[in-house]
């Protein structure tokens, strides 16, 4: 027989101002099963909690309803209080009479009536609550970091320095990401490679870090603390243990005209290559799509020149499963290419380039050795136009957000250009200058005031080629929208930062949400910026939204701190609000009919197939079984189940149907 206690909170005057609390308590005392009902000024205060604890002991309560604020606010508080008094915490429910009642209605009889109704509803529910035990799961103290850009590098180093094993998985042959392509960095103009490459080396040498380059995550199973990550290690066609990275093969390779990804197509590379000289690992891979041997079956020049016989043409891709307790996504971003802009020539003008290409032109290690030369004829441009917001903040292009980094890097580009071409004139077309950040505004002011960059506030409508010049047509909105035409030698588009290709696919593989721009979604935009909605998976860097280097690094360290916090536990406890397949013992008589329609609707792959066989192996029956470690308790399978064999702890059919009845059935009042 149920013995329910009802505790009505005044919340100072927040509830009692519009709800007659003592009448709510009085009314509750008349409900069937309620043996104790009181109201109190502050139920969440220490005396309030003591009141509940004492009542539980005194009246031997089997269930508690606290009518107070939202359960999203104080459910943990009251459940903890109940547990301290020896009552299973899952036998405590909250009736929301503040956010959903006293605050949203005037002081009328109906408001008190609503409070009474809500209490009645929860009393009926709590009578059907079951005592549940938290689920305990062990933690595998190893992290997998996906993506080896600056964010992935930082996260890996932080976790590794915290004393835990890290596997860093990078898609490209080398780590380094976009940062390794940059020339100098704002706002200090220090060389990007000079600050990044030591970190890359540290990753390679760190005893706690395993680096798998040229590898991709292709599957993820499991849950927080217990993930199984499936990784494809693409065949590099070399034996990494034998290769010394001498580079003889890359020098001798006869295929030399492949556009280099690292140089953004401004330079070339051979078919067996390392992306750049400081690459980590500094061992080449063979690009099978361009290698003469893979295309035509002959050549093998690299094999002949290799002093350690490290070339392995028959090396297959390897698929490996790794156990991990936490995942950090640091897959970074991409930028729109110039061919995205029909009005700027659809990418057909060689001298209209994007920001990353300019970085390579300005980089001392770039294809021009750091000289600003235009790609078409190698001339030094005397007039150069930078177009900020190329695609960004443009609903017509489907990119409504601000790409955030372009204002700063455009100012930097203009400065770098001016420092290298003293008699040249840089122009910048901009919408707004967004330079919020430490020393950022000072930096853009310097570009304008010291380096005499001509900033024109307005957008560029069209770029066309005429007599060897690029005519940039735009408007100057500060001069009343006057039309401006600049004959430029080169144009740099600060194209929008977008999610990396494949990010949507990866999000689906690892089950994290993503926004409409395919950037990964954080669990809370303010308070959980590095967590995802999937416990145990964290975000670092620009895979979440456009970010500059300092922000990416902070986010990476934040994610690493979360991972280390997780790894500080040997086992985790989870709320046991999970779905179960009800079955009448023995299992053979389960009401589950084995249709498995629940399997495809489960977003967590938590539903397994359980088979019952006779001794001679004949299949008697197959039923669904829910893995409580994987189940997150959404209940989609419960609503779907045709034979009503699945139920959800905490929101069981019995509880919910009773709630509906209790609310409406006059007989119960």
């Amino acid at each position, binding site marked *: 027989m149920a013995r329910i206690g009802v505790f009505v909170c005044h919340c100072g005057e927040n509830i009692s101002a519009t709800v007659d609390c003592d009448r709510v308590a009085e009314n509750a005392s008349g409900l069937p099963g309620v043996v104790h009902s009181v109201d109190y000024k502050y139920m969440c205060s220490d005396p309030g909690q003591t009141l509940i604890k004492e009542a539980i002991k005194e009246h031997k309560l089997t269930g508690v309803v606290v009518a107070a604020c939202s359960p999203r606010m104080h459910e943990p508080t009251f459940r903890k209080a109940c547990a301290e008094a020896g009552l299973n915490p899952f036998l405590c429910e909250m009736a929301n009479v503040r956010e959903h009642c006293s605050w949203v209605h005037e002081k009328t009889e109906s408001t008190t009536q609503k409070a009474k109704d809500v209490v009645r509803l929860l009393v009926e529910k709590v009578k059907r609550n079951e005592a549940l035990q938290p689920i305990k799961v062990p933690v595998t103290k190893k992290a997998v970091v996906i993506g080896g850009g600056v964010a992935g590098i930082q996260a890996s180093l932080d976790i590794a320095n915290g004393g835990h094993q890290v596997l860093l998985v990078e898609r490209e042959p080398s780590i380094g990401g976009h940062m390794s392509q940059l020339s100098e960095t704002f706002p200090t103009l220090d060389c990007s490679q000079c600050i990044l490459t030591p970190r890359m080396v540290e990753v390679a040498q760190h005893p706690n870090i395993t680096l798998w380059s040229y590898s991709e995550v292709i599957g993820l199973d499991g849950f927080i603390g217990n993930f199984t990550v499936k990784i494809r290690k693409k065949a590099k066609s070399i034996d990494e243990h034998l290769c010394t990275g001498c580079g003889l093969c890359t020098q001798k390779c006869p295929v030399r005209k492949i556009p280099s990804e690292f140089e953004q197509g401004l330079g070339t590379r051979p078919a067996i290559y390392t992306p750049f000289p400081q690459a980590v690992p500094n061992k080449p891979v063979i690009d099978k799509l361009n290698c003469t041997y893979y295309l035509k079956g002959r050549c093998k020049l690299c094999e002949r020149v290799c002093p350690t016989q490290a070339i392995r043409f028959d090396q297959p891709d390897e698929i490996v499963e790794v156990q991990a307790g936490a995942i950090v996504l640091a897959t970074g971003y991409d930028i729109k290419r110039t061919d995205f802009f029909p009005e700027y020539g659809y990418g057909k003008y060689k001298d209209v380039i994007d920001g990353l290409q300019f970085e390579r032109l300005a980089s001392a290690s770039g294809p021009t050795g750091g000289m600003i030369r235009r790609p078409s004829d190698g001339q030094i441009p005397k007039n150069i136009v930078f177009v900020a917001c190329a695609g960004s903040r443009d609903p017509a292009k489907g990119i409504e957000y601000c790409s955030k980094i372009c204002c700063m890097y455009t100012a930097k580009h203009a400065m770098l250009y001016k420092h290298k071409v003293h008699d040249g004139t840089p122009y910048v077309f901009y919408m707004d200058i967004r330079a919020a950040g430490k020393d950022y505004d000072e930096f853009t002011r310097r570009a304008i005031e010291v380096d005499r960059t001509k900033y024109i506030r307005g957008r560029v409508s069209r770029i*066309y080629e005429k007599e060897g010049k690029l005519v940039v047509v735009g408007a100057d909105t500060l001069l009343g929208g006057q039309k401006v035409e600049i004959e430029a030698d080169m144009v740099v588009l600060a194209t929008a930062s977008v999610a990396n290709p494949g990010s949507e696919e990866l999000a689906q593989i690892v089950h994290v949400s993503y926004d409409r721009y395919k950037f990964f979604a954080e669990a809370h935009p303010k308070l959980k910026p590095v967590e995802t909605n999937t416990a145990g998976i964290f975000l670092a860097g620009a895979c979440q939204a456009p970010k500059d280097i300092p922000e990416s690094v902070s986010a990476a360290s934040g994610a690493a701190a979360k991972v280390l916090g997780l790894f500080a536990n040997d086992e985790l406890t989870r709320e046991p609000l999970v779905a179960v397949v009800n079955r009448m013992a023995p299992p053979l008589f389960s009401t589950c009919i084995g249709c498995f329609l629940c399997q495809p609707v489960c977003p967590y792959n938590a539903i397994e197939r359980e088979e019952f066989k006779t001794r001679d192996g004949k299949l008697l029956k197959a039923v669904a079984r829910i893995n409580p470690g994987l189940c997150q308790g959404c209940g989609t399978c419960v609503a779907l189940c045709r034979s009503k064999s699945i139920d959800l702890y905490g929101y069981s059919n019995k509880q919910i149907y009773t709630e509906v009845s209790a609310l409406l059935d006059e007989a119960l009042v």
Partner: protein
Amino acid sequence: MKIGFYPGCSVDGGSREYKESCRALAKAYGIELESVPDWNCCGASAAHNLNRELALALPARILSLAEKAGMTDLLVPCAACYNRLMLTQHELMKDETLRKNISEVTGLEFKGTCSILNVVHWIQKWILPELPEKIKKPFDYKVACYYGCLLVRPHKVLKFDRPEDPQSLDEVMKLIGATPVDWAFKTECCGAGLSVSKTDVVADLSGKIVRDAVYRQADALIVACPMCHSNLDMRRREINGYLKQNVSLPVIYVTQAIGLALGIDRKELGLHRHFVPVNLPEKAEATK
């Protein structure tokens, strides 16, 4: 074969060679262009700046009349008329209350069943299929296809071609043997709205279009809009004044160009009505 036809004021007046060439082309294909009975002005260039209801009611009446006459395909050669008719159909189909209100104004039911075709649509649907075997004399010239503003924009409503770099006219021109040039002024404004009131602005805007076409060595400008045509053709004196040179580059309607390829008589195509004489280079004349 009968197709609905909405001429509109320009095509019926100042740009009658456009209508003549449409009809000539239709005749060559055995298509009868049947004008919308009792049609009225579509309100282009003026009404939508002054009164939204009027701007919708005028085209709505035309469309209702066409529907009443049982027209399913309605050819609207003028790009401005096409734009107004499409916008009206778009607005009325998404708002039932508005549709009712406008129906009350026009006194005619509006169902939105008419498929509105601009001239390129019409060519793609009715002319292209048999085009290759009908060509008598390939139109072997370098042409600059000029789309103007109204044929391809706003893309959200018209859903025709690529708004920044349209290709449909170029494709048609390639089929009749012409070589379209890659140029920068395909969709720049010619100044149509100021054609009468501010000819100096027209000279500036249209002048740049003509200048670039000449720079790209085009033999002719190909247009599909009477507004564009009148600015580039009729205002050539002002343009020449602006450019400080005499440009003899002819401006030809897409229908006229196809007509020439089909060997239709120049007069039937209305080529004699142009202000800038349509004298195409001799080299091509010789390739008969």
